[in-house]
């Protein structure tokens, strides 16, 4: 496979800049990359001489490792920069950080930051392509691509699939990117959670269905995705207790029965077992939760390959 010029040097801020065809092309490329990951010697020389920087201003070991592994497998050099937002606020600005890193000859940035729009800033300051590894509650396009890849791999065509996402929709960057990607590929998406965790205008902005009752939301679903419920939202007055949340929104044998018989079970992780999902579901044969992690590396390899060019 050879990278096509249309992807060269492009940013991945979110999936709205990519057409359905382009998303499918990325998935095809990821399929090829996944094969490499299954080999005994998991490395190809594609990006030899290129330097990828993981710029993580918000902690996420899992996502950072996934990006770094992807770069390593393509033989790129990896520079890792980690800082806390508070450190950045005290002294050096994001702008200065990027100028410094840029002087080291970075070819591609993979950024995780708590501020929406920060990947755009990194691109503005560096002029280099940027892959958004999650910016606040805004977007998480690589997670969405790996979710979509996992569905496509198991169920084939995304068109017409009924996909239900359950949990803290308000604070989830995963949901926003997934909605854009899944709707582009023709899925019908339903989001479900308590009203206090549901942003306004969801239908208008994303063309999805909003349900507050889990059984209604799950009815006939082909894919069910749970989201992590964070304790801190309780102190923000958004819900009363994990127990009460769980009583109404947990994915269990009892609730999953409303979905299609062998509906795919997904979760972007890390899971609160017993809060949003029970082990009986998370570890069931329908679950692709562990595979999602592996697919994450493949999708990120595909993006780096397509953006930086080279032969695979």
């Amino acid at each position: 496979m050879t990278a096509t010029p249309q992807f060269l040097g492009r940013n991945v801020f979110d999936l709205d800049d990519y057409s359905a065809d382009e998303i499918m092309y990325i998935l095809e490329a990821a399929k090829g990359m996944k094969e490499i990951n299954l080999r005994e010697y998991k490395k190809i020389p594609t990006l030899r001489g290129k330097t990828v920087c993981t710029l993580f201003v918000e902690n996420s070991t899992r996502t950072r490792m996934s990006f770094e592994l992807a770069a390593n497998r393509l033989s790129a050099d990896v520079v890792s920069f980690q800082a806390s937002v508070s450190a950045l606020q005290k002294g050096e600005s994001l702008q200065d950080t990027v100028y410094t890193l840029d002087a080291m000859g970075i070819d591609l940035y993979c950024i995780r930051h708590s501020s929406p729009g920060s990947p755009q800033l990194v691109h503005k300051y560096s002029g280099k392509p940027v892959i958004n590894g999650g910016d606040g509650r805004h977007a998480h396009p690589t997670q969405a691509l790996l979710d979509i890849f996992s569905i496509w791999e198991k169920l084939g065509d995304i068109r017409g699939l009924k996909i239900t996402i359950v949990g803290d929709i308000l604070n989830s960057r995963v949901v926003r990117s997934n909605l854009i990607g899944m709707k582009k590929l023709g899925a019908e998406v339903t989001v479900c959670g308590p009203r206090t965790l549901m942003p306004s205008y969801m239908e208008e902005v994303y063309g999805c269905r909003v349900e507050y009752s889990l059984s209604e939301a799950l009815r006939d679903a082909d894919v069910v995705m749970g989201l992590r419920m964070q304790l801190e939202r309780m102190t923000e007055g958004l819900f009363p207790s994990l127990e009460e949340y769980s009583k109404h929104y947990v994915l269990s044998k009892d609730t999953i029965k409303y979905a299609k018989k062998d509906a795919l079970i997904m979760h972007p992780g890390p899971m609160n077992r017993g809060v949003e999902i029970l082990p009986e579901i998370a570890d069931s044969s329908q679950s692709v939760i562990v595979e999602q992690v592996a697919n994450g590396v493949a999708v990120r390899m595909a993006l780096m390959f397509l953006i930086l060019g080279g032969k695979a």
Partner: protein
Amino acid sequence: MKTLIKNGLAYIEGAIVKMDILIEDTRIALIDNDITADADEVIDAAGMHVFPGFVDIHAHLRDPGQTYKEDIISGTRAAAKGGFTSVCAMPNTEPVVDNIATVDYIQRRARELGFARVFVIGAITKQSAGEEISEMATMKSGGVVAVSDDGKCVQNAKLMLNCMRYAVNYDLPVIIHAEDYHLAGKGQIHSGKIATQIGLSGIPALAEETIIARDIMLAESAKARLHIAHITTAKSLELVRRAKEQGLPVTCEVTPHHLLLNEEACLSFDTNTKMKPPLRSEKDRLACVEALKSGLIDCIATDHAPHADFEKVREFDHAPFGIIGFETAFPVLYQSLVLPGIIPLERLIEAMSTAPSKLLRLPESGIRKGNPADLTIVDLNQSSVFAAENILSKSKNTPWLDQTIKSKIIYTLLDGTFTFRAE
């Protein structure tokens, strides 16, 4: 010293008429069809408009304390370039204007060095902390024209009631920045479609509306004169309409940016679209335009809020709120509201000059014999460019940066003296 302005189209008593204007020393000496007096300087204003100097009742000059953003000289020079002859300085400086020494400082600096009349607004509460009533009586004797905790909002209703009652004692209008802190939370932009789309925390319209509803009721009880700063939502306007219908002395202002931009501007993550109150929905924006036209909104104020580059050039949620406004106000409003025929030119001029000065009972403005010669001469056919190097404010934070806009301020006169001449 005599200055004669010939052949200009002047805004006089609500109408635009072709008149010559003769200035003797600081005042307008004669207004007539064809004046042929000897003058030290004759301005040929043929094809240009002559307006009363613009009056801004809501500005931040950042002096004392934050003079890296702006100071009284740079701020008033920028004001003069925008056609303003009078500006009211909000008290959220460092220190806060809650004492007579700071009031004196600002007035003295402005008199010595200023390019515009500067009127001082004192704080409602000490340090604008929302805990104790400020020394309003002392500040009034020092010349403050109103009180406001702008940038902040008194959350405690009982304290606010007392502040209003105390302000009435000294005949001071109370200007509010309406924002319920709990409802606003950590909000960055309007709580609407765009906030949902880009994942920034929202500031709901309710944060403004509930305080306006509360303060109208408090002001009614206290018999206070209440002025609502930078109003932004349709429902806020409805509350003001009802108060005015009841005959309460409630007034409000709107900024150019809330008249011309909506929440969609924030899609770009440009921090020059980050202001408080935030840019609202298109429906709210249209309601503001309609209310300006009908007179429900009394006047236009810029909320000129300078911030240095290094503060604005950062992640959206870490950047400060606010944009500059002096140099852009008239041109952008002319281009986007008057040129397309949405608001008559006469209404725009009234809302930017005579209405605000009446509202805060500033010295009489308007082109009338005997009045101070505070004038702005504008060529509506030329264009102006808001390039950073042309901006006189120390800060360049405006969403209109690098845009070319129809109309150009050519001269500004304060007390008959030129405070600005276009190159």
